[in-house]
């Protein structure tokens, strides 16, 4: 039996995610869209905290909400005239999107929810995931060690930095 606080928190988060997700893709002002995305990301971080993955939640806030979203905002400000909203969608376009999205949702939902193996699972308590453990896993070469992906990601990020500079540089 979960604590009531947790359940309430869950509902708040779930509703926030649903509402802001929809708003993100339906608003006609791009900067608002980015803002709603920020809320979705925060809500996601709360889910991570609820799952006892504090580190992941922190990363979510720091990298996603703090980093990526700032990039978006910068890009929007560089490319958009302020106050200008996108023109209304044609109904045909909207229909296409809706069909694709609903089909996808229906199919995935059916796939997920028809599998009975997930049904009765409850959150097991007493899982201790502290920073020390994560650090050891990340830099370990043992079984379940993630040193190689870690290094690969670091190289990828380096390449990305260089690539970003090269691409966006004024020639």
């Amino acid at each position, binding site marked *: 039996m979960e604590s009531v606080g947790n359940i309430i928190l869950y509902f708040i988060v779930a509703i926030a995610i649903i509402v802001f997700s929809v708003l993100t893709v339906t608003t006609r002002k791009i900067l608002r869209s980015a803002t709603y995305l920020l809320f979705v990301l925060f809500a996601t971080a709360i889910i991570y905290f609820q799952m006892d993955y504090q580190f992941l939640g922190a990363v979510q806030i720091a990298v996603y909400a703090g980093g990526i979203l700032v990039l978006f905002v910068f890009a929007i400000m560089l490319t958009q005239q302020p106050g200008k909203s996108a023109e209304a969608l044609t109904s045909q376009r909207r229909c*296409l999107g809706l069909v*694709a999205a609903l*089909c*996808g949702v229906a*199919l*995935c939902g*059916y*796939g997920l929810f028809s599998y009975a193996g997930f049904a009765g699972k409850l959150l097991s308590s007493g899982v201790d995931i502290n920073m020390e453990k994560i650090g050891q896993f990340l830099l370990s070469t043992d079984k379940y060690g993630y040193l190689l992906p870690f290094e690969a990601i670091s190289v990828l990020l380096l390449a990305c930095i260089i690539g970003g500079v090269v691409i966006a540089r004024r020639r």
Partner: protein
Amino acid sequence: MPLNLAIVVVALPLFMFLFLGLVGVKMGRKITGVIGVLAMLVDTILAYGVALTYFFGSGEGQIVDGVRQAVVVANPAWLSFTDTLVVRMGVLVDPIAAMMLVVITTVSLMVHLYSLGYMSDHDGNAEKGFQRYYAFLALFTFSMLGLVVATNVFQIFVFFEMVGLSSYLLIGFYYSTPAANHANKKAFIVTRLADLFFLLGVMILSYYTKTFDFDQLVFGPTMSGSLETAQSAISTAGGATFLGCSVMAWALTFIFIGGAGKSAMYPLHIWLPDAMEGPTPVSALIHAATMVVAGVFLVARLFPLYVLVQGAMNIILVVGAFTAFYAAAIACTQSDIKRALAFSTISQIAFMMTSLAVSSNENSLIEIHEGYGLGYMASMFHLFTHAMFKALLFLCAGAIIHAVHSNENDKMHGLHKFMPITSICFLIGCLAIAGIPPFAGFFSKDEILVAAYHRGLGWGLWMSMVACMTAFYMFRIYYLIFFWKKHEVHDEHHAPKDQPWTMTLPLIILAAISCVAGFVPFHDLVTWDGHALHTSIDWTVAGSSIGVALVGICLATVMYRKENPLPERMANAMRGLWTASYKRFYMDELYQFITHKVIFQTICVPIAWFDRHIIDGFFNLLADATNSLSFGIRRLQSGSIQAYVYVYLLGALLLAAITMVCVLL
């Protein structure tokens, strides 16, 4: 000298072809020619050595039971299809091959030497394409040598094609003149058509006898002196018949058609007169002395098989006898000296064919009676002597043409004073071909007539008549060139004169050979079964043949020695006949009519229409359909990423749905 040198004899011209053809351009023209002549000289010496060794040596295995054996010097496999079906390329020396080696190399050497002068202008500068010319001459020599030393019938076929090719190349040597192009196309197409039959014949023959090799087809039976083996080979096919004739008769007739194409037998002779568009030495080598006798050689090579199939032999006899007369009749009226000589060649080759065909008759399959095989020997003998004197005549004609720059005899007349050496050599050639003793032609032609009389009185009389015509037309040409009336010299400086030594020397040598070649003891050396024939000159036949030859010569002398209106009057008296003969009895027009009007109109045009409209149309339709379809679906490549994503997503969903349905079911 070992017989193995025969390989070198064959290979040397091939090497010279490659050498002159590839390196010749880098060298001077004259040097190329000199190298070609020297190599040919070496080749000739080797060939003589091989022939002498073969005929007079007594090496191991050469003579068995008093019979000279065919020697296979080398016989490597060339194409092996199955264990039993192997096509070999080898070198075989037997009497006719050795004889042909001598003939080919001699004439070829003379032509090589002669061409040094002929292919140059009057200042001695070699013509353009000189190296190419010599390379092709070497190629031809190689092909012809390869043909005569063939160890199997397939090899003969291959080299048959190669001599046809080199003939094509050399006829078309002056490729910028349309006439030469037409002539070489004509020669190639006609002989190709004949070779198709040859190939059919080869296939039928080898299918039923299970072999290509002469060893088993021909020599086994002849050398052992009995026909049993060959008969068994034939009799395996004996049961099989097609259209009422035995398969073997068909095979041998087809092979003869192949030979008839190369040897210009009626009605496949039409290419030879046109082939005279090539340089005259080429005519002498290919279209008078060597290649055109390939057909005779082929029949001679398979002679033991032909003996067994009398039907095929009768066809050869009729075709040969008719062609001899037909060509002689045309030769009587031609004004172009090379064409006249060409028809003379056809007639003489027909003599050889006839001679082969009269060697046997219905009764002589097994029983050997006197005169049996005489025709074979006589044919080969005539082949030998004819090659020499016809090459001589052509080279003389070449010298004359080189001097007066025309082929027409009305541009010549009275050249005797200007070109005495050429005149005498030409006279010797004429006497030889007419059959006046002691010149070469007398002996061989006499043997042919004897063989013909053995076969039947009618054949003998017929051939005698043709011999008479031969004498007549040759002396007609001779008189029209060298006498008739005084030669009109327009320009003292450019008066015709005897040509330089490179051209005169071959004439003298060939004239000398024509004088003495008749005394070669052919009946001891070249017989179909290796046994020496004991013949003596039958003076009743010989006397009559000399008689008819003299009649022909006298007639020609009366008509053409000095300018007189007699020939004109006779031509007018028989205007129709004369014109028909002059127009070669309209054979070319007939071919033209058949090919253009009949075959083209009724067969080719509808087929071409079918090809253009149905076949091409079908593929055009395919192409057009593809094209328009592509244009239709290119809208899918819209450049809009979202459209791609949409399609991708739907595809992924579809796949997922399918998977799910499968799992559920």
